[in-house]
Every structure is written in structure tokens, then in C-alpha cells.
């Protein structure tokens, strides 16, 4: 039985994800520390400074009076003891690159254990997709012939796609058939919070399966075969 919370975010900008982020930060007490994992991104001209600024801005927008601190890990860093952190935040970028890193560094298993022990994990865009069953929902991102395709499978055997808009319907329907896996489609302003005993849907989330496209509700998720 998982004790922790997993948050799947559609991956929009700070304004898009405000409602979901607000719920994430409301779970954190003052003096909490977050481990920010921006591994899915590539470095820019001077490394990952812009990532640091971006996440700093996210924290600033939601911390209020709480003291929330964070550390950022980069590809060459050792994975710290996750228990030292009240939450993990896995950012967006290239999903295949991220999963490759997570498998090679055994981070996937550490995250699963962390959630079982009561940890909170937030995944945005690529960070959300890797926590689904199969990451080939974004097959076009596999630009370096990465071999790992099986995600952490933390959402009832379902796969995910982010940045959803209606123009993607045909493509997602095909993917669901090809992968033989229902796919949850998260628009940029939507998300799912999966707790030990409850499911909360934020915004309009869709599911694509053999029955076609439907709105995803907590009841539907619970009753999925």
C-alpha cells in the first residue's frame, strides 16, 4: 500500500499549473525541502541557471509565509538520500532522456520506495509521463535511440500524455491501440493527485481507451478494469 502522494501535471507554465501547484505546496509544512530534478532538460549556454531561476520562481509563487527550501541535482551528481526531502519535483523536457537517467541511476526504484514510505512526488510533463506505464506516448522524443520504455507505472497501469489539446485526439487514439494501454491526456492547466486513499482531478482530464475519448473522473479511474 502506497502511503505517499503522486501529482501528475499537464506541464504548462507557472500560470497554467497554478491551481495544481497550489495544492502541491499546501501539502508541505514550513521548513520543508524539495529535491528538484531537471534532468530531462539539456543545459543551456551557462548550464542550468535558468532552471534554478524557474523553480525558484515556482516556489516563490506558492510558499507564502512558509519556509520552503530546495536543492537541484544535475546529471553528474550522486543521488542524495531522498528521505531528507519532504517532496520531489521532476521537471519536463525529453521523456526518454529522463527515463534513461532514472533507470541507469536506479532512481526509479528509489522513487517508488520513497512514495511507499509516504513521500510526495510531483511530475510535470516528462516528469509525469515517466510515472505512467509506457512512455511511447511521446515516441517522437526518442532522438537518441534510448532503449527504456517502461515507466514507473504509478497510475493503475495507465500511460500518460501531457500538453494535451483536441488536435491530438487521432494520434492518441492510435497510440492507445498500438500500446494496448489506456492513455490519460493532461492539458497544460490540468492534473491528477493520487493519494493513498483518494484521487483528485484538477481541471479537465481525458482518457483514451477502447471506448474512445472520455472525461476522466475519480470514479472512472477506480472502476477501470
Amino acid at each position, binding site marked *: 500500500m502506497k502511503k505517499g502522494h503522486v501529482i501528475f501535471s499537464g506541464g504548462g507554465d507557472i500560470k497554467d499549473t497554478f491551481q495544481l501547484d497550489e495544492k502541491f505546496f499546501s501539502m508541505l509544512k514550513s*521548513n520543508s525541502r524539495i529535491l528538484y530534478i531537471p534532468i530531462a532538460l539539456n543545459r543551456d*549556454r551557462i548550464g542550468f*541557471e535558468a532552471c534554478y531561476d524557474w523553480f525558484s520562481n515556482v516556489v*516563490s509563487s506558492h510558499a507564502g509565509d512558509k519556509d520552503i527550501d530546495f536543492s537541484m541535482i*544535475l546529471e553528474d551528481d550522486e543521488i542524495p538520500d531522498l528521505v531528507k526531502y519532504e517532496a520531489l519535483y521532476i521537471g519536463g523536457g525529453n521523456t526518454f532522456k529522463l527515463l534513461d537517467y532514472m533507470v541507469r541511476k536506479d532512481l526509479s526504484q528509489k522513487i517508488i520506495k520513497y512514495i511507499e514510505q509516504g513521500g510526495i512526488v510531483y511530475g510535470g510533463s516528462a516528469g509525469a509521463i515517466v510515472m505512467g506505464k509506457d512512455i511511447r506516448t511521446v515516441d517522437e522524443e526518442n532522438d537518441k535511440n534510448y532503449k527504456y520504455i517502461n515507466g514507473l507505472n504509478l497510475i493503475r497501469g495507465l500511460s500518460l500524455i501531457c500538453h494535451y489539446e483536441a488536435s491530438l485526439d487521432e494520434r492518441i487514439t492510435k497510440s492507445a491501440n498500438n500500446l494496448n494501454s489506456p492513455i490519460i491526456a493532461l492539458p497544460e492547466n490540468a492534473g491528477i493527485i493520487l493519494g493513498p486513499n483518494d484521487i483528485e482531478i484538477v481541471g479537465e482530464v481525458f482518457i483514451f481507451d477502447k471506448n474512445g475519448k472520455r472525461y476522466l473522473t475519480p470514479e472512472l479511474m477506480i472502476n477501470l478494469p
Partner: protein
Amino acid sequence: MKNPESKNMENPSCDIEFIEKQLKLVVDPQSPSSFLKIDSEYLPTSTDPIVLTIPKLNDPESFLCNFEGFNLVEPEKVCRPSGDTTIFTTAGVQRIESMLKTAKSVDRESFIVCQPVIRSQFMDKVCDGTSTSFVNMSAEIIRSSPDEFINTCKKLIELVVKQGISIDDLRFTTESSSVKWGSKRFNNVALTLYFNGIELGECVYILDYPIGDEKISITDLGLGVERLLWGLDNSKPYMLGFEDFYEQIEDSDHATSIIDCVKSMVLIAGEDILPSNSNQGYRLRQFSKRFVKRNRLADFNINRLIGIAYQEWKKWGYNPVLTEDEVVEVISAENERNFNCLFLNILLQDEHVDLYIDVNQRTDSFLDQVKFSLSQDVITKIVNKIK
């Protein structure tokens, strides 16, 4: 009309092959990670000791004499205005971003700047050789030719050699990449220079920096002054000016990690930023939290650290808005606040007591309030644990 061949001679394309050919770089067979070195055929044969022809690199003027034809310009503020690519200045080349704010285009220009910068991405990785704040010596040529880029690479090599390093001991890497900077994407080639495995500086040629409808080329030489000086002689402490503190504890990396927090805090607070939960003030708070934790056992004198950092930065052209005393006041108050936070954290973790007391006060008055709820034994135990 010129034929294509003569045009090529005047304006050769700048790629890795061009750099390696122009600088006579060959693979070093003894190096483990495909480093390049200057072909021994082209090395000077003289065995005479190298004459130090430039002064010690301890102020902006000392760099100028190595860059004839460049103008020395004052550094920009460390805290950048809202809407810029980063919230702190991270490199001298960002000056071009500022120039473009007031002009649609930029003219040809060559300048050097010794820019105090902050790179927070290293906040939890600080050790000798890696810091969050340092002086970024940058030499920039806007609308530069490949030949000027090669000449600038040579100036970087000369700069290091004139400090007494044998050219035969220098190693190089070359790289070609497509990069993103804010909303701009461009291609560049880079030469990175190493000594004893430590990266001392790099020279980048940006081939197509987009400005409106135009794409211009820029030569960007950049090096961290503290790292350069330490890399040339790492028997000396990494943070110059703080030698006394390095003598107080054995772990040099730990001393660096404490001093680094203070140097970064001084840069931010000096520009009249107050600690808070937003923007640059949030970063100041993060540095203070790390200082309080890292300084627990070392117990370095914060006022002295601030005083030295303040004067060291000014030496490089940093122009603070607050006086040294005002900076001491801002940083000390924030450190005490974060000491109070740490006290409550340990109380919760070790004693399982969740106490609500306002942390935004001086530690003396905070502890006076704590006395109403906790025994003196518990208070002493936690204070001793922090210190």
C-alpha cells in the same frame, strides 16, 4: 566581384577543424579523455625561465594589458531587472542583453569586463574550484571575424603562460554545439583550456546570434578569476582574502562552502535586496540558511567575513548601494532568523515538540520567548547541537 575562393580566404568558416588547425592542436596520446595539446613542433624551444611580463591578476586593470584594443568597462549590477534571462548576472557576455534593451542593433565593439556574477546552480555543490559567486573576466568582440576569435584564443593562452605555466602543460577541448539562451537559439564553437585537469577558461565563437532579422557573430572569452588563480597554484586557498579562515579548520572545501555563502549574500544584500520568499530575496534567504548550517562547527566570525567580502568585491568594480555596516545588519538579522528556524526544526525532530514562536526576531529575544515553553536543559542541548 570577388571569386568564392578569395572570399573564403578573407572570411573562413569557423568550425572545430579551423580552430585546431589555426592553433596547431593535436590529440594528446597520454591524456585519458581525448584532450588536445599544442603540437610540440610549434612549441618554443628556449629553456629560459619565462619572464612574468604582466602584473599579478588582482584587479580589472591587470587584465587590460593582455587585451590591447579592448575597452575596459564597468561591471553591471548583479541583480538583473525583471524580465531578463536570469535573475542574477551570470556572465560578462550578458552585457549584450542590456545593450539590446536600449538599441535594436549593436555596433562592432570590443570590451573587457570583470563582472561579479552569481550562479546558484552550484549552491549545494560548492568546494575548492566551484563557487556560486565569482569574478567572470570576459573579453567580448561584437561582430567578430573567425581570425579575431583565433587571436582571442591566443590571448587566453598567453595570459596563462605569462603567469608562469609551460605551454606544453596546457590541454584543450573543442566543441561545436547548438545552444539556447533565454528565447534565443544559436550555434557556437568553443575552445576550453585546462591545466592539471582544471578548467581555467573558455573562448566561444557564436556564429549566428539573432538580433531582430539579423544574425551576428560574437567572440566571447570568459574565465573565473578565482578559479584561474587557484588552478595556477592550488597550494593557496581558493577564496583569496580569506586566508585566516582557512587556517581555522582542516577541511578546505568546507571553509570554501561557508565563505561562498557570505560572498554571495554580500553581492545580493549590497544591492539593497532584503531577504524574503520571492525573487532575489528568496535566494539571499537560501544562502543564509546554508551559511547557518555550514558554519555550525566552524563558527567563523560573520562580521569579519562580510567585511572582507565587501572590500574584495569593491576591488573588482562592484558598486554596492548599502554601506558595509548596513550589509552586516541585513545579513546578521537573516542569519539569526534562520538560526531560529533551525532551532525549531531540531526541536521538532529530536524532542517531537512543535512550538510556534515568531522566527523573525533576533536570536536573543527568540530564546527568551522559548524559555516560557522549554526547560533550560532542552534549550542548551539544541543550541549546542546547532553550534
